[in-house]
């Protein structure tokens, strides 16, 4: 004869077990991208996911969703090297590594290291440098692992507030940490940071968290409160609304970049360092906007 309590326990367990089905579920990132290149080079047809010298990628794997941005350092143009080639190849290589499963979700630095190694295995002699920021969502553990090398970065927004953000890595003003492949003989002169020095972080996420990954073209032109204002307009988790919001953020940043009187975060930082500068910062802008949602095949 079972007692009332044990009956009650069985009933309660059944009911609660039936209702809360979300604990064992996998998470995923619904991501949209948008961006603008600095110059309006209409003639040059780039493969998708490249905006000027910036590049980005979004990749899905069974165990994780991965996305990344890379900002090609424009100074190479003066030496006859196309700066977009390095960043685009780096991002495409990261994408391929993820799709083929040659990565561990807990180590985005591993993805960056492998991708950099693969760049050196290419018969084509690549030259150039770029920053890199990679964000990995581990589906099962509901954790996000990130690595950031340079001045691109990400924001995590929950309930209208920024709960995580990346740190910028700069050697000196306007010279971020960067992965590079230098021409022979110039190795001592050209800045080349190893993937090991990338900033790493890991944190838990909840359903509905918003992750904004972008190059410095966004963060240098739009302060946090403006970004948060735009994100408030995000109503639901479907792809079209995310795409719309990403586009409006990128467009606004693009407008502000060319406003000569606006006190952008970049101008503010310059003034703090003694340079009397005003206005936006024309730069390539890449925005990847993601929301944590449930995993559907």
């Amino acid at each position, binding site marked *: 004869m079972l007692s009332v309590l044990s*009956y009650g326990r069985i009933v309660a367990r059944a009911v609660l077990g039936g209702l809360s089905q979300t604990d064992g579920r996998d998470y995923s990132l619904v991501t949209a991208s948008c961006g603008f290149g600095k110059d309006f080079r209409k003639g040059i047809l780039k493969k998708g996911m490249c905006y000027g010298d910036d590049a980005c990628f979004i990749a899905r794997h069974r165990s994780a969703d991965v996305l990344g941005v890379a900002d090609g350092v424009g100074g190479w143009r003066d030496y006859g090297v196309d700066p977009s080639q390095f960043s685009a190849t780096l991002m495409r290589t990261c994408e391929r590594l993820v799709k083929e499963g040659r990565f561990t979700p807990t180590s985005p630095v591993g993805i960056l290291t492998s991708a950099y190694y693969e760049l050196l*295995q290419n*018969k084509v002699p690549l030259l150039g440098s770029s920053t890199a920021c990679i964000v990995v969502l581990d589906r099962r553990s509901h954790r996000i692992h990130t690595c950031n090398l340079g001045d691109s970065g990400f924001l995590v927004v929950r309930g209208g507030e920024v709960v995580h953000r990346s740190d910028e890595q700069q050697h000196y003003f306007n010279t971020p940490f960067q992965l590079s492949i230098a021409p022979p003989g110039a190795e001592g002169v050209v800045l080349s940071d190893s993937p090991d020095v990338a900033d790493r972080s890991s944190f838990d996420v909840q359903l509905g968290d918003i992750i904004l990954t972008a190059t410095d073209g966004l963060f240098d032109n739009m302060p946090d409160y403006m970004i948060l204002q735009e994100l408030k307009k995000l109503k639901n988790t479907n792809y079209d609304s995310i795409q719309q919001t990403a586009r409006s953020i990128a467009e606004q940043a693009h407008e502000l970049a060319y406003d000569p009187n606006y006190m952008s975060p970049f101008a503010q930082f310059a003034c703090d360092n003694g340079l009397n500068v005003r206005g936006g910062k024309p730069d390539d802008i890449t925005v990847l906007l993601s929301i944590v949602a449930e995993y559907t095949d």
Partner: protein
Amino acid sequence: MFPMLTLLSMFYYICLRRRCRSGSRAESLGGRRALIDLGQRSTLPVTVEVEQYAKEVLDFSSHYGSENSMSYTMWNLAGVPNVYPSTGDFTQTAVFRTYGHWWDQCVSAPAPFHRTPPSFHSRDFLELAFEEQVYPTAVEVLETYHPGAIIQILACSLNPFTQNPPADVRWEVLWSGEPTKALSPQARQFSPTIRPISFPTNLLRLEVNGSMLDYYTELDAVVLRGVRERPILALYKMPMIDISDLSDGEEDLSETGGPLCCRTATADHKHNHGNGYFDKLPYELIQLIVSHLAVPDLCRLGQCCKLLQQHCSDPLQYVQLSLQPYWSRLSDAALTHLQPRCTLLQRLNMSWTGNRGAVTAAGFCSFIRACGMSLVCLQLSCCHFLNEMCLEVVCVTCPRLQELDLSSCDRLQPHAFTHITKLTHIRRLILYRTKIEQTAMLSILTFCAELRHLNLGSCVMIEDYDAVVSLVAARCRGLVSLDLWRCRNLSERGLAELVSGCAGLEELDLGWCSSLHSSSGCFQLLGRRLHRLRKLFLTANRTVCDSDLEQLATNCPALEHLDILGTRMVSPAALRRLLQACPRLRLLDVSFCSQIDARTVQELGSLFPNVSIKKSFTQ
């Protein structure tokens, strides 16, 4: 009331759980409907053609890329195509290590084996596993650069993912052809007509020969089309007897009664009636006639009569034995039966044989112990049955061994290589893609001073190549060829010692050795010291410059093969001077050299028509 409540809640619990697990309701309804349909149409067979891309690359003999990379490596063949239908030299494809006839012309090329059947010309192979076993109806190979190298497609009865592998493993040829060269390097889908086979398969093997090609062939993906049920038509077809089948001995694929397992004659026999005209021929003449037969035919001939049995088991017929063309049929039993005939064995080629349990380490060891005393050359490329005991037996039983090929034996434990120190007369040692470690290599070099040809390509477990190379320079002064392909931490210090110590070097492969910098003067020193240099590969060394080519032009008149892929620092003028100074140059690879454009290549090609100038492209 309580039992009812319990029942209700358990029912609710179970239903909810099942709901969230089984996907959408529509899907489950659809599934049931399909079952009903099949039941109604049970009279008609449903032959659904299944199309699969390769799931995994299981084995291969060589590749261009690095061991832990996804650029130009064989693992790119798995999965969906990345490049097709584009044409070009892309990183996402599978590329073999060699092409053309260039490597055959090198001094380091091994002598061919007597009695190789003319129908066997495979140089490389790869094995692919697919998800599901099907009766194949078509195999499509997506070749994206310089197609034409595939010469044979085979299917295996074994499921490589099974936990309990069966005892008998059969390989059937789906298609076989000659090495060709497509008219242009354009990408193509190669889909030859394949033979129907009697068993379902998910393991395919492609054999490749790129000797007619102008450049490296590149493969993107392989598609296997087949049906799950055995095609009904096959049951009604008369079995076609192909003359070529008979000569290949397809029906002799069984493991017990193969042509290589010849029955021994009974001891007591009927009174000998004489051999007719055969008695008039001298013994040596019959031996000479019989020496032209390939090994399986030799074994079959020996089953005719006692006289021919005596001729065919004469150990003089088995001084050179190449079992590589018969890799699918070689087993322990075959080795045991060959044993009494191979007592004078000097050159043995067992490359590619014995995998998937056909030959065991013990079987191999007993064969070597019985027949290896006079062995001079032993080729064991891709022999995955080898273990440390096998190498120990080889090195103890064959002290006079001069040539040992262990390329792509990547499952051999590092400790096994230490036994090679006993082979003090070794002259040709090929360790391409093995896991040999530094200490073993150094001790081999200490004791084996007679080395003439050494191949350490893609030996990733050696940490300090400078130490290895400096010992080579100190001990192996007579070295003729050295392959250091992808030896990534070799520096100018090691190279300087090498060129001082081994001044007789004729071939040096330093491809993808990224730690060598021309600014240190190492290549100029190389040019000045190695007067006999015939082959030099500086592939993907981005620092090669005009002054290096000047030194080569001035000091290396015998140069025949040169690869300077990927450097930005070489000008057309320096190339022209090199071509003028080296009249014997036949191969020049200037792919991805930024200053050398297609027009320059064309001009130089017309000025120097004997030189094959290679300029690869990605788009």
